[in-house]
């Protein structure tokens, strides 16, 4: 478990640690640490080079701003660590004692520590949702890497107090290389809906962690939209569910010349906890998408439910999909199921649409649209009067990547 220690001086030298960990003579050596399961499919050699480069340019921290909200309560609850004196109440301290271990292999621990230590107080931001408060608006938290070329790190805590309710857009603008952690802590009975868009207009690489801890009866719903061009990323999403907690994940990955791994690990620690994961990947132009979805039902729990659906579309040109849905069940009293399907845009479906008068290109477009639509529809409440800015941004990004117009 990464221990948070905010250090002002004597930061761990990431160069040295990385060399030691990867047992390399110098940072230029590029070889993968293939023995570590979560990294099996990820090619760290692709990471090391840009990381070295950016580290040479210098280290910077990501900046967090809050937009799209007039709610003063919310605004006043966005702090940077330096403003927040009492760190004891934060996520890790609280969860440390009752967390079923997120078993982390060495490299992951390394990157987590790297993020925390290099971000320091400056790069650590906290957004509190006050107790019993239910926010009407949907604020946008923007995490951006301000200094081009440098190595960026940032840690963001979203802390929802008891019975609070909020929907939050989280838009990340990564730099050339960054390591980040988003902690999401849900106290009892709280409900948080997170819509997480990685929006980059330059190739970016990095390792990202999104870690949830859900207390009793809390509900989380997360939309994860990874729309990537020329990126090389590893995203770890973990969740630790207490009794009666529920977590829903809807995600899409669309890659063009990108290698992105999404690694889900959901641990059901409490009775009657429910998880539901729907993840769709679509790759084109020499991309490589990896989905690792692990659901763990701990021994002694009752009535847990874990569902997982994964659908993948290969759009051509030397692309590759690895799909690894996994189940670890230690008790009989569960409902658990998962399914994964990979293929291309079905010729039969295209033929069907053409037989109803649509041209080939148009039919393909509609089918492509449909592939993403159902995930997006589940993430965004449909309101014709109030078009959602984030949703529009997502469709724009999708179309830019696909190189074709497919929205209505």
């Amino acid at each position, binding site marked *: 478990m990464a221990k948070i220690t905010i250090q002002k001086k004597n930061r761990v030298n990431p160069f040295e640690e990385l060399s030691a960990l990867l047992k390399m003579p110098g940072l230029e050596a590029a070889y993968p640490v293939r023995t570590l399961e979560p990294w099996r499919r990820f090619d760290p050699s692709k990471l090391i080079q840009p990381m070295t480069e950016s580290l040479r340019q210098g280290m910077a921290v990501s900046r967090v701003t809050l937009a799209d909200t007039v709610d003063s309560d919310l605004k006043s609850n966005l702090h940077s660590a330096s403003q927040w004196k009492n760190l004891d109440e934060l996520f890790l301290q609280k969860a440390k004692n009752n967390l079923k271990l997120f078993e982390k292999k060495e490299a992951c621990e390394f990157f987590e520590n790297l993020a925390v230590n290099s971000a320091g107080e400056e790069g650590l931001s906290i957004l509190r949702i006050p107790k019993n408060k239910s926010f009407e608006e949907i604020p946008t938290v923007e995490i951006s890497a301000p200094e081009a070329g440098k190595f960026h790190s940032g840690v963001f805590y979203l802390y929802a107090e008891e019975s609070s309710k909020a929907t939050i857009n989280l838009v990340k603008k990564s730099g050339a290389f960054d390591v980040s952690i988003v902690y999401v802590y849900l106290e009892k009975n709280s409900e948080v809906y997170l819509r997480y868009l990685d929006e980059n207009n330059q190739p970016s690489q990095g390792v990202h962690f999104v870690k949830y801890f859900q207390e009793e009866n809390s509900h989380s719903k997360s939309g994860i939209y990874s729309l990537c061009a020329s990126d090389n990323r590893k995203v770890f999403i973990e969740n630790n569910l207490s009794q009666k907690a529920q977590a829903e994940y809807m995600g899409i990955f669309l890659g063009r010349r990108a290698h992105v791994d999404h690694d889900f690990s959901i641990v059901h620690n409490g009775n009657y906890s429910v998880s539901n994961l729907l993840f769709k990947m679509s790759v084109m132009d020499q991309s490589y998408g990896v989905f690792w979805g692990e659901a763990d039902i701990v021994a*002694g729990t009752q009535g847990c439910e874990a569902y997982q659906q994964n659908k993948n579309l290969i759009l051509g040109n030397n*692309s590759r999909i*690895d799909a690894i849905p996994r189940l670890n*069940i230690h008790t009989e009293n569960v409902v658990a199921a*998962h399914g994964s*399907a*990979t293929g291309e845009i079905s010729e039969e479906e295209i033929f069907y649409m053409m037989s109803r008068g649509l041209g080939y290109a148009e039919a393909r477009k509609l089918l492509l649209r449909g592939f993403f639509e159902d995930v997006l529809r589940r993430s965004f409440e449909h309101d014709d009067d109030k078009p959602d800015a984030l949703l529009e941004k997502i469709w724009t990004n999708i179309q830019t990547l696909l190189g074709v117009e497919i929205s209505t």
Partner: protein
Amino acid sequence: MSDTETTNTDLKNKNKADFEKEDYKYGFHDAEQFVFKSERGLTEDIVRNISKIKNEPQWMTDFRVESYRIFLEKPMPNWGDVKGLNSIDFDSIYYYLKPTGGQERSWDDVPEDIKNTFEKLGIPEAEQKFLGGVTAQYESEVVYHSIREDLEKLGVIFTDMDSALREHPDLVKKFFSTIIPPGDNKFAALNSAVWSGGSFIYVPPDTDVAIPLQAYFRINAKNMGQFERTLIITDKNSKVHYIEGCTAPTYSTDSLHSAVVELIAMEGSTIRYSTIQNWSNNVYNLVTKRAVAYENARVEWVDGNIGSKVTMKYPAVYLMGKGAHGEVLSIAYAGKGQHQDAGAKIVHAAPGTTSSILSKSLTKDGGQSTYRGLIKVHKNAINCKSSVKCDALMLDNKSTSATYPYMEIEEERGVRVNHEATVSKVDDDMLFFMTSRGISEDDAKGMVINGFIEPFTRELPMEYAVELNRLIQLEMQGAIG
């Protein structure tokens, strides 16, 4: 169908005492009498000795020695039942035993003692007209085999591996170890160094072997390792069904079973390889099984894992020719102290290939069952379709079921790869429904379980299906009673 019904009636009429007697039907061993007994542990000299005693050609001796060196170098796998694997004491195992002077031709010539063993195992029942030739292995050396005249007339070669090397050296040399090289993994290397016994089957072109060919194994003597090596080749458009079923007595020290099975299905041919493995609960069963299917060929693995302390086995099919088909149907039962780490591996390396995997697992009393599978579609393997289904039935809240499927897809044109997995338990509502129709809870549970494994049992020849149902009932008796 009706025979399964008869079975259930028979079972119903038996009481617990009868079952207990049967339980040790397979738990006996004869006083050890062997002509030659090798020392414990393994050295290059022992490897050379084994080859010398068998009178093997130089190339095989060299192959064994080279394999032994690879075995020493190769690291232990760091996945699967790592603790169990690392607890194997290679130095305390006997690697070769030869019970009698030579090979027998018919029952009358077999020594009484050994005949007894086979009778207890039910082999004479199998020696029926329609079952064809039987090669029975005992203590690493084939003591009895008989090839039916029909098979000989067809040109089918069905013999033990040692005899095959002697009688058909060129044929064996052409194919031996072409599918699984000694460097594949540590246990394949071990087997390659000390292999003994196993079956060799060659079916000439356009030949359909209508009767299933069978073999029996047994482990006797303390710390006896079984290292049989099987090689089956079906030439163009031929068909064969091979059944491997084994039992072993219970010992206090561990036994190691590390077999290698290579199947080669030429164009248009079909190989079905069925196994019911019921090693006693102290055996480490680490098997490397792999098949290659050429154009329009078909390979089916029907794999039942009931016994052993640890089994690690992933029957594989490499689809190398257009239109080939690979199928794995497996069940795993993991009871107290057992770990079944099984699965399947299918590689689509040619266009138009199809595959399907159905894996069913049962766990109770703290047993651990793991499915580990791989579906790989290579670039340019267009129009491939694959579907995988994994179902786990958990019988209590002390056991573990894990599912680790891997899908690696590098081609999209005409490709469709599907996977689904479910975990379930014997529903209280299901039991209530059945008991409200007069069926006792024990019987009801038995019916649900047999229903669960039915897709597997229906693929087995009748007496195996019956044996399997009985085995499962026996295993379940503890949990239900």
